[in-house]
């Protein structure tokens, strides 16, 4: 039996696995990475939105671009990535059997890192097996990898970041999202993600669940209903929608079967069924490590840092670096990870209702319950100011770890400070020149430029716009509020696209002065 041997075998070429291999390769290890998919990068290649965080976390770069960067880096450091390589099992002596092409190969590693990511959770209701009921991941795969619309009229179940981001992507692909429902009483994901879906006209139904998927051979409709405190549907609250697709985004679970099969000690935790790991990511089986979602569900940004930590740890385990070198690198990475794990959505706040921001401002309940910040709530946030002349209006109302807007403004108008979860504030001592860099750099698409009295009685609102067809100057249409309702007629006065904006176009519309703090989206007539 031929067994190929490597210092380090990585299972999964997603953000964690690739990062670990790169980090290890930088220390002189020649790792081999297996991935069952045709393309590396894991879920990054389906993520077309800009990431949060700060520069070190690759903030404001789109997921699939981060994937490309990681691949280039992997290539640069000589990481061997084998695709269409399905791992069959992980056996004693750190042996991995892998299907490659039409055969099975045996590999042994001195260290094995399992970075297999996560799988979607599912929820069952009447008709959930009908064709047309799909996972949110399936929707992403279809539209972002295979260029096909998952459906024409879609209902999304789940208001976590996945549900919100995928809803927006569905809209970008030209699908209609008729409603977003969630059994939870409050939006689970970032408020900025909710707000951008909401202003496109998608109604949010919190405390609602699916009663039934209708159809005989495939989905033709859906009924949702309001749930009471016992999580049961309150009779009489049922609402019907004509849809051809129901998209489920009800959370993720670690895909930890390989670690379990290998005999690693497992634990059933809030983050899912995960291997018991020490602080270095080492499992109970010596030489077997875990990183990324497989060891607990988080964002891709954290998975990349965790992967790097594993890479450094394994480099030390295999004697390529000293303990001191490893510790200094791990400490540096830990600091990066810590900043990502701060704010309202920090792991420690999971499931908790945070009512005040770090600044002591009341969190918008309307945002949590309906998906958008109400008109009478918006002005209490430090990014929302009124002044003469063009200035940014930053509708960023929750403490999330993100600061590209601060870096984007060359004029120093935007202040976040050292703590990247702080709400951005507008400094009126600095003069905004209307360059729009902040609008394009905001991963949450929460920044607008507002200018009063561009002509008598009328002002302009500049907004991020990521849809096709792109409106043209002179087009006339309607402006929409944060709640997605029509507010007034609007005329397109400027359309800016630029490489620096990275596909976030800046659309400027002219509306009556009194609508400047209301109009947040535009649709052609």
């Amino acid at each position, binding site marked *: *039996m031929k067994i190929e041997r490597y210092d380090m075998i990585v299972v999964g070429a997603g953000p964690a696995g690739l990062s670990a291999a790169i980090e290890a390769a930088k220390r002189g290890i020649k790792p081999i990475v297996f991935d069952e998919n045709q393309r590396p990068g894991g879920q990054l290649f389906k993520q077309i939105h800009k990431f949060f965080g700060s520069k070190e976390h690759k903030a404001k770069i789109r997921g699939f671009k981060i994937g490309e960067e990681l691949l280039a880096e992997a290539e640069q450091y000589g990481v061997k990535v084998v695709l269409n390589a399905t791992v*069959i*099992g992980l*056996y*004693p002596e750190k*042996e991995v*059997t892998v299907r490659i092409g039409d055969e*099975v190969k*045996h590999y042994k590693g001195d260290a094995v890192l399992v970075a297999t990511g996560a799988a979607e959770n599912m929820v069952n209701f009447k008709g959930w097996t009908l064709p047309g009921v799909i996972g949110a991941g399936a929707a992403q795969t279809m539209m972002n990898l295979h260029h096909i619309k998952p459906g024409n009229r879609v209902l999304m179940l789940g208001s976590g970041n996945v549900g919100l981001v995928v809803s927006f992507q569905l809209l970008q692909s030209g699908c209609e999202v008729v409603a977003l429902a969630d059994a939870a009483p409050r939006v689970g994901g970032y408020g900025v993600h909710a707000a951008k879906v909401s202003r496109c006209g998608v109604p949010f139904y919190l405390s609602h669940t699916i009663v039934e998927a209708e159809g005989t051979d495939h989905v033709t409709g859906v009924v949702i209903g309001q749930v009471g405190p016992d999580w049961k549907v309150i009779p009489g609250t049922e609402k019907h929608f004509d849809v051809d697709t129901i998209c489920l985004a009800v959370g993720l679970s670690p895909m930890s079967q390989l670690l379990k099969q290998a*005999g690693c000690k497992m634990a059933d935790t809030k983050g899912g069924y995960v291997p018991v790991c020490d602080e270095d990511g080492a499992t109970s089986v010596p030489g077997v490590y875990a990183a990324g979602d497989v060891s607990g569900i988080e964002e891709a940004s954290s998975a990349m840092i965790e992967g790097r930590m594993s890479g450094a740890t394994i480099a030390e385990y295999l004697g390529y670096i000293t303990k001191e070198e490893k510790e200094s690198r791990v400490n540096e990475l830990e600091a990066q990870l810590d900043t990502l794990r701060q704010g309202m959505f920090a792991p420690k706040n999971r499931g908790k209702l945070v009512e005040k921001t770090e600044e002591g401002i009341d969190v918008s309940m309307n945002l949590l319950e309906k998906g958008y910040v109400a008109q009478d709530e918006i002005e209490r946030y430090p990014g929302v100011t009124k002044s003469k002349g063009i200035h940014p209006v930053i509708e960023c109302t929750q403490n999330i770890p993100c600061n590209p807007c601060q870096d984007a403004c060359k004029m120093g108008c935007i202040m976040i400070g050292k703590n990247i979860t702080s709400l951005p504030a507008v400094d009126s001592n600095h003069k905004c020149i209307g360059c729009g860099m902040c609008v394009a750099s905001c991963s949450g698409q929460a920044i607008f430029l507002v200018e009063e009295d561009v002509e008598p009685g009328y002002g302009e609102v500049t907004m991020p716009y990521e849809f096709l067809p792109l409106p043209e100057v002179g087009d006339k249409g309607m402006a929409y509020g944060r709640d997605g309702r029509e507010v007034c007629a609007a005329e397109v006065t400027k359309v800016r696209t630029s490489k620096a904006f990275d596909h976030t176009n800046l659309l400027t519309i002219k509306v009556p002065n009194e609508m400047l703090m209301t109009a947040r989206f535009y649709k052609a007539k």
Partner: protein
Amino acid sequence: MSRVADTIIIGGGVVGCAAAYYLAKAGNSNVIVLEGTKSIGHGGSSRNGGGVRQSGRDVRELPYAMYGIKNLWPNLSEELGVDTEYTQKGNLRLGKTEEHLKKLNTLASNAQSVGLDVRMVDAKEVKEICPYLADDIIGASWCPTDGHANPLTTTLGYYKRSLEMGVKYYTDAPVKELRKIKGKVRQVVLNDGTVFEGESIILAAGYESREIARTVGVDIPMTRLIDEALVTEMQPHMFDIMLGTAGGDFYGHQAHHGSFVFGSDSGYEVVTDMKDPSAMETNSLTLSASCRAIMSYVPALKDAKIVRSWAGWLDNAFDGVPFISRVDEAPGLILACGFTGHGFGTAPAVGLMLSQMVAGEETVVDISALRYDRFKPIR
């Protein structure tokens, strides 16, 4: 305070559960079954390939194997209220070499001598019985009354039915030792110190039986060996017969569900040194080796996908047949272990006979050849 019953059965596998059922059926439902793990049928009972066969067996086993197939299996699903998927469509034991045929022939003639309907068939007849088999098979033994069943539902069926009839079950109840009271084995002590007490103690705990019996000074000559099995995805219906080979390459059948269940090995298992025996890990070579073995006899299955493989311990008796026996120096103790990987098909008959032994009745067939003290030093 001890928990008392007429009979304590150690081992919630198919033998233990069957014994409990036949005891209850005979009106002796004051029975306690102790299963060491959290699940009934956790050991070999749920890990075997489901053969219900007579052919290929040692003549010492044949009388009760035949008894079970004639009298117990046919109505078992109805009796238990659970579909055991018992299918009596015959068993081909295949040979590819003259040596294989010689071996099959010897087994067949031995079996014929005790009245089993088994005969040798040639390559042509093999194909007539099962057209999906490989061309290089030169002959086989054919036993039309053999068959297969679903070991999972059979084991759980005995459990369910006996539970309904009042048998008491304890899971996660690993036994530490047996204790004699006034010269008679009466007490069963768990790892956690709980004491059970009974008139009769049936020891049907697979290989673990050896350690347990040692606590009352009885050593049962058996070893343990890990073996593997696998299951395919659901396939279109192909055949109903049971398959085995003279070379022991593999055995198995197509289940009612459509999937094929096969047991096989790589030969490597005999040297497996598993750190944690309870993990019953599969090894990296067996899955591929099993597929080669199966495909060399049933090439039509090359595209069938394997969805799962697993491993289980065999309690290998030194001479390949079980110990079903009272123990003279440990009165009260009844052994039912050492089934050597082929205990499933005979479990109903063994269960029935154990219930008879408890009741002090004569067993339906003579099993004196399965006494625990049958072994003698060879020199």
